[in-house]
């Protein structure tokens, strides 16, 4: 078993925690796991990418080569498009429909269109689940749970090779107690949203 997950987003969206949750769940399941994260200057609103590699054998590199991701988890439509070269043929995409418009687009007075990004993703991949992250966050009452909601969606879509229960277990062990309830709710809300799309 070898599984590669690439998480694409914008600095501040919580991709680092998302990668850790998946990795922790995989580790508790007795699998080998390596991740690589973007930490530093790019965290200030720049493009960020996490790689999560899971296997039942030793893993050599923390970074995957292009064309080898089983799943592309897009926290933002344009960032998902940016990371498409990592997706392998037949791989799955789980993507948040909510855009984060870059300052460069506003300055250039160009419209940055999320739907155009999603349309292109659909053209490239027929295993795609589009999640309305805004709606889930509004229900839960915090914009910060988007990362966990998307992980829930990806797990429910069968794109992680891990169950919702495994992720929930990792989440309970990783987060501060007062944050657990809200994030467990977000995890299941994400899973339900993915279920409705399939």
């Amino acid at each position: 078993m070898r599984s590669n997950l690439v998480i694409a987003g914008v600095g501040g969206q919580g991709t680092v925690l998302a990668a850790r949750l998946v990795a922790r769940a995989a580790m508790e399941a007795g699998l080998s796991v390596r991740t690589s994260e973007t930490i530093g200057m790019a965290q200030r609103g720049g493009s960020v990418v996490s790689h999560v590699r899971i296997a039942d054998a030793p893993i050599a590199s923390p970074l995957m080569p292009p064309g080898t991701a089983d799943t592309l988890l897009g926290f933002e439509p344009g960032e998902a498009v940016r990371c498409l070269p990592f997706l392998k043929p037949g791989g799955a995409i789980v993507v948040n429909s909510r855009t984060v418009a870059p300052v460069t687009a506003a300055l250039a007075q160009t419209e940055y269109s999320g739907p155009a990004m999603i349309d292109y993703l659909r053209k490239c991949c027929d295993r795609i689940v589009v999640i309305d992250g805004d709606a889930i966050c509004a229900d839960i009452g915090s914009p910060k749970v988007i990362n966990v909601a998307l992980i829930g969606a990806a797990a429910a879509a069968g794109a992680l090779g891990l169950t919702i229960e495994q992720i929930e277990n990792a989440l309970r062990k990783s987060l501060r107690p007062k944050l657990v309830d809200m994030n467990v709710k977000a995890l299941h809300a994400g899973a339900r949203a993915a279920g409705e799309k399939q």
Partner: protein
Amino acid sequence: MATEFLMGNEAIGLGALAAGVRVVTGYPGTPSSEILPTVSQRNPGNIHVEWSVNEKVALEVAAGAAMAGARSMVTMKQVGLNVAADPLMSLAYLGVKGGMVVVVADDPGPISSQTEQDTRTFGLFSKLPVFDPASPEEAYEMVIDAFELSERHGTPVLFRPTTRVCHGNAPVALRDTVRPAAPPRFVKDPRWVIFPRLSYENHIKIEQRLPVIAEELSGYRFNLLSGGGRLGIVTQGISTGYVGEALAILGAAVPEHKLLRVATPHPFPKRLALDFLDGLERVLVVEELDPYLERELQRLAGERRLPVTVLGKASGHIQVAGENTVAAATQAICGFFGLPAPASAVALPADAPQLPARPPVLCAGCSHRSSFIAVKRAMRKRRAIFSGDIGCYTLGNADPLNMVDTCLCMGAGITMAQGLRAVLPDTVHFAFIGDSTFFHSGITGVINAVYNRTPIVVVVLDNSTTAMTGLQPHPGTGDTMMGEISQRVDIATVLRGCGVQHVEKCDPLKLDDAMAAVTRAAEATANGVAALIFESPCIHVAPQGSEYVVDAEKCECKECIIKLGCPAILSVEGKAWIDNSLCWGCDLCAEICRFDAIQALPRGAKR
């Protein structure tokens, strides 16, 4: 033995704990910043942990402890070693009693750094042993080995992870026992006082010792030699993983070859390298940053007149700058073995929508934006040069702010402004510097300006934290890594103590007041150095303010978008629109709106 899922930096911190470290010092810098907080969080109580004011100070504090026989560790990024070079070079001659590990994180890419310098080469220069881990789990074990070697040979040791090791995560098996530390004891001895005669004698000892260490390291458990045949591949650090994966991808097509992984580049493990080179015709070296191993192998081949060709960066097989990847390693290995390169990336439909560039930006609500706007507006009719420095505020260089004209290294804004002033006296010279950077290396530059009568405006952007590297405390915040409340060092008092006559504090979020203060400071340069301290906490340590809405009917000028470059303000159907999931409520957009179209609302209010 417990197994934890750890970042490489956390593994290094816990490795030091297992090795019985007693003093850990450092200055934050990506990719090294998480090592020291890991020790602080798991401190059993007997370890002194501090963010020092800069890397030179940090290294000297750690050196003092090691002279008394305690194990010590100091952490920094690669450019930090330039700051700490002075004590390090001399300490290499004096040596240590307790094991001392100098962790220097290199940053191929570079991803968050000014240079792509290679600390292995610094090891060669300073004559210090260097460890080069390839993964978090290896880093944990290797840092323990580094302490042992340091203590055994009485020399500080460099420990050099790179970004992908520092910020990679993996399950790490932790040792149950922590090495008991002997009680520290300082024995007065001339060996601790550096003099030319002592340096000469110790230089001889160092040159005698290095081959001994090299011989010992030829058998080191992480220096690995395998395979056979007439072709060979050499790797180091993270490239070991890239090469391993590339060889797995190519599978059975790969001809017989030897593989050497060098974990201790200095002193070069000569005997192991000779075993490797024996019978080889061609060697490919896959490494990042300097062609360090390539040169060592070429030198060895020349010395022994071996009929082997060493390929790598000089031959164009490996890129000279930037990071290696699995794909690049695969390509290089195919070229080396004469194999057809595997099909490159998946072909995607050609009509991809254009992706906007997404460079890092100042956060929504960042007070630096307000500080820059205040200076820019106040100096609109003056000729002015804005020298910048290292920190979040370097991001003020981007459009539309465009307020960083120079940036060199920590503290250089204040001093380069003086050089500019010396030759351009008709221009107003501003030097922007953050609070942590001010303590790191700004103060000496201020004294220099006062002493040499060079009238510049020093603008301290005091956001009460070390923001870019992850909110570390510093002398101005009044809390320490030992969990204690310390005396706050007041920047204004420091400036006055340095002889600056005009020192003013001001809240940059009150734009009109801030602009008036900038004008006063610029005028005060007629009498000497002027300083302005913009005090406003980083949004990551400050509470969120009001929500803001744009009245679309009133919105006409779009100055907020064009002038501020705030990530929370978007253009929607030709009007400004504020994303309240990002807005921190700084009020700057409302202040500059000429049509009074932006209003504050209590957070969470119905609209």
